[in-house]
Structures are given as structure tokens and as C-alpha cells.
């Protein structure tokens, strides 16, 4: 395996062991999706109306919950120094970590979403659009999140500053994603929204490794 795949595989393994990984992001997502109806009330029409928005926000939050340790664990125990000295450029390191994060959260959340949509009484077509929008949009969450995680790397309690930094940047993802679902519910085409989402996601994944690498480098110099 090349260094890139080695790192990716290790991050997935770490996520899977001891309290991380897909299963847990899923549980969190499912729990939020359950709590909201408990709070909002059982009106099925109301629920299906807000389903797209709530599930999108839930997915972003679920992904966020495991983001703050993306680089921090490696920083605190000295692994990050060793990774920085390896033949793998820091940009590729960031990309591997984004990919691992997406696989263990975003991808899993996407797969679970149709089931949760069922709880919200969402019709099949909007459900499909929700699924697609999550598939296209969640990589952007991991990518933008990686920037935030690398900036807050050296903060012991970065847990709360991270959302403050990245959530405003993620507003377009939520708008385009949930907007596409709303569009089909109102009888419009979702293509515009999904297209914009894809463009945002692509740009985020391509550019964020550079920003993340720069701020990791910065934090190593301490």
C-alpha cells in the first residue's frame, strides 16, 4: 500500500475502534432525527415538510461531531510530526484524512438517510433527491471541516470553536441540499440545486487540502 492508502486505512481503523466510525455517526444522526419529532410534535404533514431541512442539518451536525479530532489526536500524541516527516506531502495527508472522515461519516449518513426519511413520511421522489444531495454534498462538509479542524489543532478544547468557524461556511451546502428537496416537493426540478451543490463540493474538496496543510504546518512550529 502506498503511504496515502496506509494513512487512509489507519484512520478508518481508528474510527471503527473505540467509539468512532460509521455506526456512531449514524446513531447520532438517527437520534437527532428522532428527537426533532419528539420536540416538534407528531403532525406527519408538518414533518414531511421540514424533513429535508432537518435531515440535512442533522447530517452536518453528525459529521461535525467527529471533526474536531481529525488532526488533533495525531497532534497531541506526536503522530502528526512523524506523518509530516514521511514522504507523503501534507496536502495528501489532509486529503487522506478528509476521505477517511467522509467514508466513516458522510457516506454512511447518506446510506441511512432513506430510512430516516421514512420516519418523516417523505415521499419516494424527494427521498431520492435527499439521498443524492447528501451524496454530493457531504464531501464538502468533511473538506471544509478539515480546514476548521486544522486551524483549531492546538486548542485543547477546540470542540466548540470549530463549529463556529465552519458552520457559516457550510450554509450554502445546507441551502442547496435542502433546497433541492424542497424544490421537488413543490414540483420543480432539483437539477439546479444539485448542480450548484456539486460545484461547491468539488471546489471544497480540491482546495481545502491546501488550506488545511498550511495550517497544520503552522501548528507544527510550536
Amino acid at each position, binding site marked *: 500500500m*502506498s503511504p496515502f492508502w496506509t494513512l487512509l486505512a489507519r484512520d478508518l481503523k481508528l474510527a471503527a*475502534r473505540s467509539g468512532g466510525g460509521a455506526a456512531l455517526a449514524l446513531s447520532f444522526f438517527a437520534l437527532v432525527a428522532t428527537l426533532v419529532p419528539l420536540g416538534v410534535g407528531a403532525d406527519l404533514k408538518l414533518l414531511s415538510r421540514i424533513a429535508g431541512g432537518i435531515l440535512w442539518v442533522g447530517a452536518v451536525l453528525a459529521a461535525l461531531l467527529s471533526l474536531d479530532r481529525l488532526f488533533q489526536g495525531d497532534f497531541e*500524541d*506526536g503522530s502528526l*510530526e*512523524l506523518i*509530516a516527516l*514521511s514522504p507523503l506531502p501534507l496536502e495528501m495527508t489532509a486529503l487522506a484524512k478528509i476521505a477517511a472522515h467522509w467514508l466513516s461519516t458522510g457516506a454512511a449518513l447518506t446510506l441511512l438517510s432513506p430510512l430516516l426519511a421514512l420516519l418523516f413520511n417523505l415521499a419516494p421522489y424527494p427521498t431520492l433527491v435527499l439521498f443524492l444531495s447528501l451524496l454530493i454534498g457531504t464531501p464538502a462538509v468533511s473538506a471544509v471541516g478539515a480546514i476548521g479542524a486544522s486551524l483549531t489543532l492546538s486548542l485543547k478544547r477546540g470542540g466548540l470553536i470549530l463549529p463556529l468557524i465552519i458552520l457559516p461556511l457550510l450554509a450554502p451546502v445546507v441551502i442547496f441540499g435542502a433546497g433541492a428537496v424542497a424544490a421537488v416537493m413543490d414540483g420543480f426540478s432539483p437539477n439546479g440545486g444539485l448542480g450548484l451543490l456539486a460545484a461547491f463540493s468539488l471546489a471544497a474538496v480540491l482546495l481545502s487540502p491546501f488550506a488545511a496543510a498550511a495550517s497544520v504546518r503552522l501548528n507544527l*512550529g510550536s
Partner: protein
Amino acid sequence: MISSLTAEKLACARGERKLFEQLSFRVTAGQALAVEGANGAGKTSLLRMLAGFLSPAAGRIVLKIGDAQSDDAEERGRQVGWLGHHDGLKPQLTVREQLTFYAGLYAKPADAAVLDQVGLGRQADLPCRYLSAGQKRRLALARLLVSQRSLWLLDEPFAALDTAGQQLVAQLMARHCGAGGIIIAATHEPLGLSNESLKL
């Protein structure tokens, strides 16, 4: 193969404090340099500078490989074998997994015999969370060997090790120098080999 490492008039400032200034030295292939000094003198800072994590406040570091020389930090990093204050181990991974990971990351073969060499043969399948302080340090040593780098930067290589462990380190260092490698080690004890020393 590295032929020499030269530091020219290095200065290091942490916060508003100057730790050292006008520090120059030269280490050639096969040599070891012991960096000595009181707690807080700047040994770790110097090593981090040599590894390229910190940039010097003044001066430069030149690495000569064969006849080509360069002062690029990233390029130098690719030659560095690092043993820092932190061991870079994950509690969730077993000893063997940890070693295989670093071998893969450095694109080098994972030689299982190394574990026996550092005395961790019996712990190969134990998750790192269960290792004692000295066993962690031994695993870090194994990782250093597996990475096959020629410029060793060691921060207190004897820390946490028992007598046998300390002898092992001395022996590994002697072998590394014998094979033409360079060692720069921060330490409070004698290295136990014929070496230059630098007082901070």
C-alpha cells in the same frame, strides 16, 4: 547518502525570549553530536528546527547529500528519523499494527524482527494502551529503525528505559554511525559513544 549537516549562526526565539544565538556546528557522516543543557535551555527547540518544524529566527541549516546541498526544510525532513518527547502511538492499535502503519507511511518494508530486537516480541499483539512507559519508548525505537532514515534526531533517547534498554540504544546508535548515518541527540546523560558535544 548524507555527507554533512551544517548549522550556520542559528538563533531561536520563543515568545519574547531568545534561547540561543549565533549557534554554528557541523556534523559529518558517521558522527554523533550530543546536545546538552539545562532544562529549558532549548534542546528540543533546536531539534525541532533541524527537523524543519520550527523556522530559525536567524541563520540557516544546510544539508549536503553527496555533492548537492540544500537548505530547504521540507527536503531535509525527508531524511529525518525522529524520536521526540511524544511517541506517536495510538492506544487503539496493537504494537504490530502500529509498526506496520509507520512502515507503510514511510514506504519501507515492515520487518517484524525489529520487535524482537527492541524486546517487544511478546507484546506484538497487545494494544498500545497497555504498554508501560518504557515499552512505549521501545516501540518508538522500533519505528525509528523501520523508517530507515539517515539523519537521526533523538530527544532524550534514554528516557524511561531500563538498563538493558539504555544499552540497546547505545548499541543501535553506534551501529547507525558505523553505517555512515548522522545522530544529533539531546540528552542529560553521556551518549556512550565517541561523539562531539554541544552545550546550550
